[in-house]
């Protein structure tokens, strides 16, 4: 019998299991979670013949290494990086056959932050509320990978491995986030809104799966009172007391008490997931 599983040889800085997340539970305080770059994870899945919502590994900055116990087709996408199988160079962004017992090494991201590793059959970690995603805010789903962790793989997909000519979005040199002002733009001064929509911010190294933190001119409030907690959406640009905008990503809290000055378009958030600290951020107001 084939042992459909892999062992983690090098977990890397932060490697988690991610699929499309668990939307629909925000009223219970459960974040949506899911791959921060959903286009990259869907493309990687397509390359190995998986449905787009199969669970993959999401690495952060320095990749990871795993040893499958069975021969398996994998694809590494998202942030470009060196891929090696038992030390020999292999293709990035294309299906790669890994023999049973060989080590798949996913190298440090050359550009961007997060690489995605899809395995034919998907990572079959236990699902919680319909999703295998690791949620770092509330601790739901499989724990982040550690050296020695063993994770099961799902049954081989019926579909053939996909085309190897898929377009990968590039990591942004400058992060342009189109955002619709509100719902609490009236909590800020006119001067603050001008700064927000015209000045350059930088991606802060304190960014994580919960939010993209920024450095730049603080936004001054026009209303100084306390906002009763209210529901938060993906892409909400929340402004904490230090005045620096935080863009909410997949593991964001479902409610919050700081005013949201604007909401970033969902399709711009994948680029936010790949923006390295120090990247220039511009918020472009759209209607």
């Amino acid at each position, binding site marked *: 019998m084939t042992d459909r599983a892999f062992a983690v040889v090098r977990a890397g800085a932060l490697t988690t299991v991610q699929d499309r997340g668990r939307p629909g539970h925000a009223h219970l305080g459960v974040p949506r979670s899911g791959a921060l770059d959903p286009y990259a994870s869907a493309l990687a899945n397509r390359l190995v013949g998986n449905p787009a919502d199969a669970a993959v590994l999401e690495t952060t900055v320095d990749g990871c290494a795993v040893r499958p116990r069975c021969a398996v087709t994998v694809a590494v996408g998202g942030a470009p990086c060196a891929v090696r199988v038992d030390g020999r160079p292999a293709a990035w962004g294309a299906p790669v056959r890994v023999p049973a017992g060989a080590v798949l090494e996913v190298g440090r991201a050359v550009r961007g932050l997060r690489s995605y590793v899809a395995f034919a059959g998907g990572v079959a970690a236990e699902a919680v509320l319909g999703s295998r995603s690791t949620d770092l805010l509330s601790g739901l789903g499989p724990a982040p990978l550690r050296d020695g962790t063993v994770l099961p793989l799902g049954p081989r997909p019926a579909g053939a491995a996909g085309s190897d000519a898929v377009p990968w979005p590039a990591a942004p040199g400058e992060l342009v986030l189109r955002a619709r002002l*509100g719902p609490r733009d009236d909590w800020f001064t006119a001067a603050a809104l001008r700064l927000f929509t015209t000045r350059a911010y930088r991606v802060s190294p304190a960014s994580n799966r919960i939010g993209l933190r920024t450095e730049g001119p603080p936004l001054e409030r026009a209303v100084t009172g306390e906002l009763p907690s*209210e529901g938060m959406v993906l892409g909400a640009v929340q402004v904490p007391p230090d005045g620096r905008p935080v863009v909410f990503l997949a593991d964001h809290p479902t409610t919050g008490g700081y005013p949201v000055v604007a909401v970033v378009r969902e399709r711009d958030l994948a680029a936010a997931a790949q923006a390295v600290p120090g990247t220039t951020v511009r918020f472009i107001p759209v209607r």
Partner: protein
Amino acid sequence: MRAVVVGERALLVELGSGGETEALHAELLRRRAAGALSSVTEIVPAARTVLLDGVEEPARLASLITGWEIEPLHARVEPALDIPVRYDGPDLPEVAALWGVSPEEAAEIHAGAEFRVAFCGFAPGFGYLTGLPAGYEVPRRATPRTAVPAGAVAVAGPYTGVYPRTSPGGWQLIGTTDAVLWDPRREPAALLSPGTRVRFVPQDPQEAARDVPRGVGGR
């Protein structure tokens, strides 16, 4: 009522009071159960707002929703959920002092109230329960605890809550329950969801405040 479009596909409805918020939330659930709002993925009530996510045409719904006739919230027919509690929290004496009563009387006041989950948040399974009479609001602790144990029954502002798991927290701890607030392997995972009615039942009748004369103190 005021409705503000949020991003591309969400709507935030602001209401005048917690009661109106709970009534709108109940109305939205009724309409969704009847087949309306089919694209809506999330209905998230909070203190004075209800957020709808996954709205096809948020601007259109914003103009419609403010014209809705919303049934006022009335006592519902289903029985309240009983949560057994030992009133043994370390902050019970302080809360009692704020209320101007003895700790035993504070426990009786709390156990005598009918609660309702106004909304959830902070952590999976954490509900903000309303139901304490006006005048019983208490401040958060000046210094939050770094670890509040799972099952701690706590009060802050107008709310009562139960910590689903060990976490940092600034609420005043008045008791302990063995009830499991959150279990992802259970269906439903959350013991409390918005709208759930709750009573806190003193677990040990000998120790409970039952024998203390009623009607003392108040406020």
